[in-house]
C-alpha cells in the first residue's frame, strides 16, 4: 500500500499538461479540473430537449408577434401624429362581438378584437366603441334598434332634445350619420356577422314604432293556463265557503280581471301608447325602397375553440399566435386605410337563402361575402344543435314546479293557513312575483332560441336586395391597387 502511494506521485506530473499544473495551484478543486465533458443521462436529455423546444417555440412565436404588430403599427403611425383640433371628432368605429355558441364567456369576440385588432387602431388614432352581446340575438336586437332610431331621425320623427343642442359639441343628425359613415363597423366572427345582418335586415324592414318586447310577450302569454286555478285545489280550499262567494275567486286570474296583475301591466301601457299617438299622423312607416349608404363593414375572421376535442387546436394556437396577430393586424390596417368595395353577393342569392332554410348544407354555391368565415361553423359544439330542445326541457321543468309555488302563494295570500316559521323569515314569492318571474324567464328562453335560430349553421345569412347598393366592405389597400380603385374618401 505504502509502496504504491509513493510510486504514483512521480508518474502523475508527467501526464499533466502545463495548464493543468498551473490551475491546480490556483485553489480550484482538483475534481473540477479532472472533469471530462459528457452527455447528461437519458432522462436529463429528454427533459432538456422537451423544455427547451417548448420554451423556444413560445419565445420565437411571441417575438414574431411583436415584429408583425410593430410593422403594422409603423405603417399607420403617421395618421396619429397629425395635430388635432380640440373640437374635431376622431374617426369612430363600432365593434360588435356576439356571444360564441356554447361558450359561457360571452366576451370572447371582444377579447379577440382587443388583443389583435385594437393595437393598430390605437396606433392610428381611431376611436372605437365596443358592443358585446351577452346572449344570442343581443347584437341583432341592438342593431335593429339603432337602425330604427336612425330611420326615425332621418324622417324627422324624432328630434334631439333642446338641452343637447345647447352643448358645444352638438352635431346635427345628418352630421352624425356622416361621421358614422366615415367610421365603420367591425364584425368579429361568423356569429356576429349573422346577427349583424339579421339586425340590419330587420331594422330596415320593421316598423318605426318602438316595440315593447315585454308587453308583446305578456299579450301572447295572456291566454295560457299556467296561472289558472286548479279546480280541485280551489274546491278543497273553499269547501266550506258558500258557492256564490266562491265563484269570483275561481275565475282564472287573467291580467284584465286580476287586481293583482294590474300594477305590472300599468306602467308599460301608457309608455307604449304615448309615442303612438304623438307620431301617428305623419308616419310613412313602411320600409323604405332604398337603403341609404351604411357604414362599411370590416369582417374579422375569428374562431373560438371550445371543448375537449379542440384542445389540440388550442395548443397549436398557443404556439402560433403570430397567425392571429397577422390576420388581426391586417384587418385593422384595412380599416384604418379605409379602402372599400361594394359588397359582393351573387345576383340570385335570394333563392339560395330560401332553399338553405329547407335543406341543410344544400347551397354549395359561392355566396360571396355572405360566406364570410363559414368554416368556423364546423367548430360549433355539436350539443348546440339540441339547444331549442334543451330550452324546452328547462321550460317544462319550470312549469311542473310552478303549481306548487303558486298554491303556497295563494294559500298565504288568502290566509287559509298561517305561514310557518321558515316562511316568516324567508317569505315565499307572491303571485305577482311569480308572474313577473315567469315573464322574465319566458322572455329569456324565447330570445335565446330566436338568437340561436339566427346564428345556427343551417340558417343562412340574412340578405336584403336593397342592401346591395348601400353596403360596402373594407379591403386591403395593397390588393385593391390592382383592381379598380373604389376607395371612399374616408379619412377626414
Amino acid at each position: 500500500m505504502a509502496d504504491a502511494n509513493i510510486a504514483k506521485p512521480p508518474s502523475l506530473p508527467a501526464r499533466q499538461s502545463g495548464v493543468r499544473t498551473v490551475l491546480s495551484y490556483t485553489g480550484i478543486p482538483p475534481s473540477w479540473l479532472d472533469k471530462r465533458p459528457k452527455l447528461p443521462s437519458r432522462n436529463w436529455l429528454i427533459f432538456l430537449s422537451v423544455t427547451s423546444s417548448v420554451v423556444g417555440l413560445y419565445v420565437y412565436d411571441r417575438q414574431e408577434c411583436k415584429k408583425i404588430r410593430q410593422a403594422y403599427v409603423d405603417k399607420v403611425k403617421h395618421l396619429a401624429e397629425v395635430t388635432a383640433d380640440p373640437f374635431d371628432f376622431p374617426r369612430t368605429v363600432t365593434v360588435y362581438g356576439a356571444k360564441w355558441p356554447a361558450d359561457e364567456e360571452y366576451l370572447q369576440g371582444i377579447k379577440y378584437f382587443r388583443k389583435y385588432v385594437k393595437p393598430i387602431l390605437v396606433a392610428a388614432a381611431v376611436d372605437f366603441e365596443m358592443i358585446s352581446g351577452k346572449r344570442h340575438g343581443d347584437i341583432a336586437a341592438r342593431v335593429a334598434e339603432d337602425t330604427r332610431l336612425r330611420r326615425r331621425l332621418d324622417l324627422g320623427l324624432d328630434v334631439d332634445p333642446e338641452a343637447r343642442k345647447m352643448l358645444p359639441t352638438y352635431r346635427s343628425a345628418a352630421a352624425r350619420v356622416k361621421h358614422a359613415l366615415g367610421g365603420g363597423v367591425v364584425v368579429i366572427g361568423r356569429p356576429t356577422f349573422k346577427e349583424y345582418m339579421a339586425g340590419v335586415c330587420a331594422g330596415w324592414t320593421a316598423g318605426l314604432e318602438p316595440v315593447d318586447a315585454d308587453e308583446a310577450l305578456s299579450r301572447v302569454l295572456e291566454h295560457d293556463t299556467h296561472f289558472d286555478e286548479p279546480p280541485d285545489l280551489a274546491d278543497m280550499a273553499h269547501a266550506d265557503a258558500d258557492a256564490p262567494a266562491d265563484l269570483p275567486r275561481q275565475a282564472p286570474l287573467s291580467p284584465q280581471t286580476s287586481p293583482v296583475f294590474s300594477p305590472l301591466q300599468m306602467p308599460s301601457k301608457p309608455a307604449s301608447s304615448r309615442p303612438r299617438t304623438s307620431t301617428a299622423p305623419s308616419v310613412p312607416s313602411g320600409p323604405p325602397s332604398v337603403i341609404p349608404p351604411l357604414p362599411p363593414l370590416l369582417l374579422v375572421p375569428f374562431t373560438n375553440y371550445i371543448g375537449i376535442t379542440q384542445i389540440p387546436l388550442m395548443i397549436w394556437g398557443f404556439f402560433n399566435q403570430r397567425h392571429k396577430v397577422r390576420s388581426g393586424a391586417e384587418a385593422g390596417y384595412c380599416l384604418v386605410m379605409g379602402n372599400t368595395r361594394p359588397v359582393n353577393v351573387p345576383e340570385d342569392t335570394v333563392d339560395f337563402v330560401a332553399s338553405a332554410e329547407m335543406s341543410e348544407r344544400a347551397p354549395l354555391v359561392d355566396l360571396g361575402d355572405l360566406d364570410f368565415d363559414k368554416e368556423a361553423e364546423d367548430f360549433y359544439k355539436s350539443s348546440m344543435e339540441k339547444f331549442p330542445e334543451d330550452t324546452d326541457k328547462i321550460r317544462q321543468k319550470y312549469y311542473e314546479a310552478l303549481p306548487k309555488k303558486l298554491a303556497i302563494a295563494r294559500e298565504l295570500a288568502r290566509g287559509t293557513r298561517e305561514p310557518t316559521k321558515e316562511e316568516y323569515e324567508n317569505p315565499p314569492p307572491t303571485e305577482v312575483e311569480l308572474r313577473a318571474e315567469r315573464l322574465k324567464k319566458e322572455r329569456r328562453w324565447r330570445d335565446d332560441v330566436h338568437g340561436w335560430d339566427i346564428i345556427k349553421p343551417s340558417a343562412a345569412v340574412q340578405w336584403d336586395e336593397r342592401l346591395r347598393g348601400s353596403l360596402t366592405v373594407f379591403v386591403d389597400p395593397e390588393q385593391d391597387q390592382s383592381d379598380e380603385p373604389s376607395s371612399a374618401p374616408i379619412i377626414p
Partner: protein
Amino acid sequence: MSFLRGGAPPSSGVNVDKIDMAITELDTVTDFFNKMVSSCYSKCISTRFAEPDLNKGESVCIDRCVGKYNEVQKKVGEKLQSRGAANAAAGAAGGFSPL
C-alpha cells in the same frame, strides 16, 4: 322683499354640517380630477414635446382615458355605497363595520 325674509334664517345659524359636507365633497372632486389628469397625462402624452398642440393619437387616448376613469369611478362609487349601506345595516345590528 322675500329675499330678505328668506335670507334671515341662514344668517342666524350657519349649518356647519352642511358646509363640512360641501367641503369634503369639493375635496373629493378636486382629488379625483387631479388624479385623473395626472394618470391620463402620464399614459397618453409623450415626453417629447414637438409641437404646442395635441396630436390626434394623444387626443383620442385622453378621450378614452377620461371616459374609462369616470366609468371606473362610478362603478367603484356604487360598490362602496352598497357596501356602506350593508355595513351600516350590520352596524345598527351591533356588528363591527370595517368601512
